[in-house]
């Protein structure tokens, strides 16, 4: 279609070098022994870690759900406010993202620690200390804190496209605020919801820094497991590659499910 194909060459080269080749390497390592012979052992060994995989999925689902619950009303309020308020909100949401991800997570460590900010404060009232750090709860908190903007932004950008007149029309026909939300705003912001869920769920399920810093040893996630295979004492890149492969498949399945959901909405609209 485009005449000047030369323009796309650098991008193609980039894609091949940094996407296709690494993927091929992952596949190769996953299906070979350390000596380079073909094997399915690595993949079948992944089954031993099914509890880690399940807890990763579970924590990511919780974090994504809470992100959605927090972000949805906020994005809606933002999309309905005046330009200045919208810009202020946007600034507040973006501001933490200017700081390094690890620094932000370290900050949470000092807040949640046994002798951290919260427990010191509680101690003043003769309460606590509470065990907060090194719990699955702290990991979920870290996930929510770090990935919340990725939920708010896509929601907000689909919601500002919803015309004010549509909401007024629904009110005019007898819908109170909840009915307006449920029957008009939610269906029309569906693309934002699916994008937001994908953008939060995928980094959550593959994270390793958050779980290591805030979860201690209490909740090992898939990401930690993979990291261990490459950098830990259990050094086993073949198993690591196999787990990575499984993780990719899990994410692919999740995204396919989301897309199916999205498409069935479209198709419904088309067919009816």
């Amino acid at each position, binding site marked *: 279609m485009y005449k000047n194909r030369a323009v796309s060459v650098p991008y193609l080269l980039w894609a091949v070098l940094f996407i296709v080749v690494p993927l091929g390497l992952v596949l190769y390592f996953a299906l070979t022994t350390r000596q380079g012979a073909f094997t399915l052992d690595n993949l079948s060994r992944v089954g031993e870690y099914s509890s880690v995989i399940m807890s990763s999925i579970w924590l990511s689902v919780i974090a994504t759900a809470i992100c959605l619950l927090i972000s949805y009303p906020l994005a809606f309020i933002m999309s309905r406010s005046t330009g200045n308020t919208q810009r202020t909100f946007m600034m507040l949401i973006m501001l933490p993202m200017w700081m390094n991800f690890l620094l932000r997570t370290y900050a949470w460590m000092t807040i949640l620690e046994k002798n951290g900010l919260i427990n010191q404060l509680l101690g003043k009232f003769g309460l606590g200390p509470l065990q907060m750090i090194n719990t699955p709860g702290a990991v979920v908190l870290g996930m929510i804190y770090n990935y919340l903007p990725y939920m708010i932004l896509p929601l907000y950008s689909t919601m500002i496209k919803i015309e004010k*007149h*549509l909401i*007024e029309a629904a*009110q005019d*026909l*007898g819908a109170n605020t909840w009915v307006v939300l449920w029957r008009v705003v939610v269906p029309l912001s569906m693309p934002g919801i699916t994008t937001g869920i994908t953008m939060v769920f995928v980094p959550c399920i593959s994270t390793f820094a958050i779980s290591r810093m805030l979860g201690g040893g209490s909740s090992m996630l898939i990401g930690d497991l993979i990291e261990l295979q490459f950098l830990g004492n259990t050094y086993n890149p073949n198993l690591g590659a196999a787990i990575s492969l499984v993780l990719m498949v899990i994410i692919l399945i999740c995204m396919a499910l989301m897309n199916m959901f999205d498409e069935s909405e479209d198709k419904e609209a088309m*067919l*009816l």
Partner: protein
Amino acid sequence: MNENVLISLRNIAVDFDGERILHNINLDINDKEFVTLLGPSGCGKTTTLRIIGGFVEPTEGDVFFDGAKINDLPPYKRQVNTVFQRYALFPHLNVYENIEFGLKVHKVEEKERRVRVREMLDLVNLRGFERRSVNQLSGGQQQRVAIARALINHPRVLLLDEPLGALDLKLRKEMQVELKRIQKSLEITFIYVTHDQEEALTMSDQVVVMKDGVILQSGTPQDIYNEPANAFVADFIGESNIVDGIMLRDFLVEFAGREFECVDSGFDPKQRVDVVIRPEDIKVVPSIAGQIAGVVESVIFKGVHYEMIVDACGYKWMIHSTQAQEIGSMVGMEITPNDIHIMHKMEAE
């Protein structure tokens, strides 16, 4: 107060960003009538409509519906429905679901919903379009869906905000007739906002002319056309020649350098007034026979008549006549006392 009054606006004022956009609006709207709010854009007609719909709260004044004050009543509790300017159809719902929306919200049973949506589809001639997506409809069809959707809850008042603005001329005319038919057959009140004076005259029982947030005149189309309250109304409703005049005494006015008999009285002697004469009320006669004589400057064929501009006594007179005159020729103009409308000068413009 008339017993037939359904909606009453009392001393309504609205401020927007510290600016007053509606001033002291007083308006009574009769039950089952077709009332049009007419005016140029920015005159406050849509805001007035939105006050009745409940989308704008008046800064001052009261809104009464059927005798009860409804200032604070949210839109979803009012017996009023709206056809929005750009239709505002729900893009995620098909034609049937759009019309059904109001019933679902009110938790009407499935069976009854089906019957009532069917009724509405018949009313707006959209049978067979149930499953269509609203994005596949033409402007006129979307318009019909919007009307059906707004009427499904059997409102007592339908508000229409420039509903025909986006349609082409022929479709507009068709929809005008259709809207009037729907209003008559359902026997409900229509409040219609438009800037098109012809639309207002042909459809309404009552026309309310607005400008700069003020009601200039309210009355039947005949009243408004024949007895405009001031030069602005006269000019806005149909075309007119507006010239400066001086009232010499009752029934005698001076303009264009000579005296004319007229039918107006009650002005101060020597009061400066606007004299309004409709282009179709000026009769073209041989130059010696007329009260005023002038030179024809231009002639434009308009279909039913010719529109001529005649330069006389320092004014350009617009004349509508079925007979064309030659450009550059001298013609006489004759105006009968009945066709001379005397108006007070509008205050400080």
